[in-house]
């Protein structure tokens, strides 16, 4: 078991190292296949670990940080949660790596690309398998660095480099909160081991627990693009499409949700934190879905949909539905990777055109891509009996079962979001694949490898529901597997409630799809295309610009910061500090000139001043003498 766990992380790491150190001297094919084989081997090791898994294991590889009573060894922890995530990550990332071989076939910087991609996976696996918080934080930052480097992969365009920097800086804001929480937890519990921390929640004063929970939530919000730190994700589309797929599906954005699930036994002791998580998730889900409704860029639609879906996962965590959240995380990884990779095929076919209003007719010209995208879209929209339907419904059920005014309201908003999700998903689908080809160019052929990759993902995404069927239809495999994780009461709704909720979800999905068909299907399509020529107004513009959050943050933080820096630069540094030095030097100089003008070279003047000085001295002595005599 120890060997398997080590291999899971070390293989991608070695792949990254070899490519980074001597990738340039290897043939292109070898370099590419090395990267893929590293992830493939990692997947094989994960499968082996799965087959020999019986109970949670903790292995210590080496000591790392140790000082007095502080210790954070290189220790890994495998339990159902980390195991299921490891399987998903290695599987999805392996496919994305294969896809990248075809997608990046023209790019000269493939060595840097594959090295970073491997490192990205290694960092994410470290994050998932880490047994203590400092080690998890190392993976956390590694993921952050790789995302920065990959989002700005085509850094020669300022826009892309800026997007990378934005992702890095915004997530850093959340990381600060996470870092504080790590240190605080050690101060309170004298341990950094996640397993120990999870069992020590009761010994922490409630208000401190709430504060730590909120800090963790803020840290997770940074990584997982939740309110209020979600602004970096739409811009992160600047990177290559497989990178977007990897960031959105398997690595990076799920890290925040994973963190909250990992520490759930600790944070679930504070109802305030749970409510905050649920509210954050719901608001973000609504935000993402509403913004996705009017986007024109294919990848931005998907980016906003990711924000929205991660919001659902947060909602699941907040409602205590760890199983449901994990389930949705896994299924979302499959169908979001599928959607992004299909989008990559579309973009390749359209000669790097990303505006969905200029696409069309791809159903006929790229049928394989169409079916792949359709499968992903059905899952995203929550079409009944697909994986996405069951996973999203699981979360909504968990929320419903919580009861109370707050959670009822959240359920309603969640259902509304599910409806909007169906609407925007099929809007995109119909605009991209429906109608006739609008582009002047003929569609470019999509490499068969890229289309082929869509197949396994589509199968897993569509059939993923079987992993965790609602209890109406039988027992959930995943919930049985994840059962050891569950703390507190098991969510076990009655069958009638469950059926009713399933029907409500189906109704939301069908309404959304139906409305999308009514607006964008058939002959109405041309109407919308004409409308799209007009500038956006009112609500549409508001949604298109992501609720103007970027402008709001610019107004609230960036402009004041720039003004403050300019104040310090122009006023404090240049005027006060430099100015005072300049004036002091000028003063000394003028004194020097004044004294210098005395040295006129006339001996008589020197003598006179000499005599005057002597007279002054004598006078002073005389005064001293007389005053002393008088006194």
């Amino acid at each position, binding site marked *: 078991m120890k060997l398997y766990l080590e291999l899971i992380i070390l293989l991608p790491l070695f792949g990254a190292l070899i490519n980074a150190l001597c990738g340039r001297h290897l043939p292109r094919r070898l370099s590419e296949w090395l990267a893929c084989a590293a992830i493939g081997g990692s997947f094989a090791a994960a499968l082996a670990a799965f087959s020999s898994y019986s109970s949670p294991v903790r292995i210590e590889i080496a000591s790392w940080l140790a000082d007095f009573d502080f210790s954070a060894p290189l220790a890994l922890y495998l339990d159902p949660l980390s195991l299921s995530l490891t399987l998903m990550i290695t599987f999805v990332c392996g496919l994305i790596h294969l896809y990248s071989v075809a997608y990046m076939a023209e790019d000269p910087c493939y060595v840097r690309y594959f090295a970073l991609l491997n490192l990205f996976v290694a960092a994410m696996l470290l994050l998932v398998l880490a047994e203590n918080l400092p080690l998890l934080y190392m993976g956390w930052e590694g993921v952050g660095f790789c995302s920065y480097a990959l989002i700005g992969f085509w850094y020669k365009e300022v826009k892309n480099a800026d997007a990378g920097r934005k992702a890095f800086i915004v997530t850093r804001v959340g990381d600060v909160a996470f870092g504080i929480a790590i240190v605080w937890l050690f101060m309170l519990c004298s341990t950094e081991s996640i397993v120990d921390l999870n069992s020590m929640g009761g010994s922490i004063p409630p208000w401190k627990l709430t504060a730590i929970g909120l800090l963790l939530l803020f840290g997770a919000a940074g990584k997982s693009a939740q309110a209020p730190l979600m602004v970096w994700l739409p811009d992160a589309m600047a990177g290559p499409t497989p990178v977007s797929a990897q960031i959105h599906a398997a690595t990076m954005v799920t890290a925040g949700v994973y963190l909250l699930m990992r520490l759930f036994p600790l944070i679930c002791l504070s109802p305030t934190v749970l409510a905050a998580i649920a509210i954050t998730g719901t608001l973000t889900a609504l935000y993402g879905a509403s913004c996705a409704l009017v986007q024109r860029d294919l990848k931005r639609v998907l980016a906003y949909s990711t924000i929205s879906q991660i919001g659902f996962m947060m909602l699941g965590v907040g409602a205590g539905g760890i199983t449901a959240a994990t389930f949705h995380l896994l299924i979302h990884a499959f169908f979001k990777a599928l959607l992004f990779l299909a989008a990559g095929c579309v973009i390749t076919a359209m000669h790097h055109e990303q505006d969905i209003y200029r696409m069309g007719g791809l159903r006929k010209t790229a049928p394989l891509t169409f079916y792949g995208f359709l499968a992903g879209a059905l899952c995203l929209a929550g079409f009944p009996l697909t994986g996405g339907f069951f996973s999203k419904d699981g979360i909504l059920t968990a929320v419903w079962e919580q009861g109370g005014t707050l959670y009822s309201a959240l359920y309603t908003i969640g259902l509304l979001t599910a409806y909007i999700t169906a609407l925007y998903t099929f809007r995109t689908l119909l605009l991209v694949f429906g109608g006739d080809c609008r582009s002047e160019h003929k569609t470019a052929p999509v490499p068969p490898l890229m289309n082929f990759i869509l197949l396994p993902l589509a199968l897993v995404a569509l059939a993923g529901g079987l992993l965790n069927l609602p209890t109406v239809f039988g027992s959930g495999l995943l919930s049985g597997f994840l059962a050891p994780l569950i703390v507190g009461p098991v969510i076990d709704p009655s069958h009638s409630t469950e059926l009713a909720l399933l029907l409500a979800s189906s109704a939301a999905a069908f309404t959304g799809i139906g409305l999308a068909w009514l607006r964008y299907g058939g002959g109405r399509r041309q109407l919308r295309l004409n409308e799209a020529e007009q500038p956006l107004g009112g609500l549409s513009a508001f949604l298109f610009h992501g609720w103007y959050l970027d402008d709001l943050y610019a107004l609230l933080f960036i402009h004041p910061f720039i003004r403050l820096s300019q104040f310090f630069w122009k006023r404090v540094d240049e005027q006060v500090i430099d100015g005072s030095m300049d004036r002091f030097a000028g003063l000394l100089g003028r004194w020097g000139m004044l004294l210098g003008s005395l*040295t*006129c*070279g*006339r*001996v*008589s003047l020197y*003598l*006179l001043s000499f*005599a005057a000085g002597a007279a002054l001295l004598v006078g002073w002595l005389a005064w001293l003498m007389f005053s002393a005599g008088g006194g």
Partner: protein
Amino acid sequence: MTVPLIQIIILAGIIFSLGLICTLVWRSNVIMLLVGIEIMLNGAMLVFVGGSYRWGAPDGQIFALMIIAMTSAEVSLALAMVVYLQRRHKTVNVDDFHELKDQ
């Protein structure tokens, strides 16, 4: 008859002041400047001698003798320089010598 010390000091002061005034005022001739300095030195010497007499100690008189020796040396050097300056600048006016000033 003993002259009180205070009177000697007053006399020395008068001599010193006269020498100083001579130095400061008579600027058209370097030699007069040197003469002024000599007069001031004589005033100072007088104080030494008077003080020596007052307290019956010989060191003041020894100093006076040393000053006499020193001034004679100084005057001979100074006069040599005056001759040199006169040859070089064709003048002995004090105010005309200002080479030490920076240009």
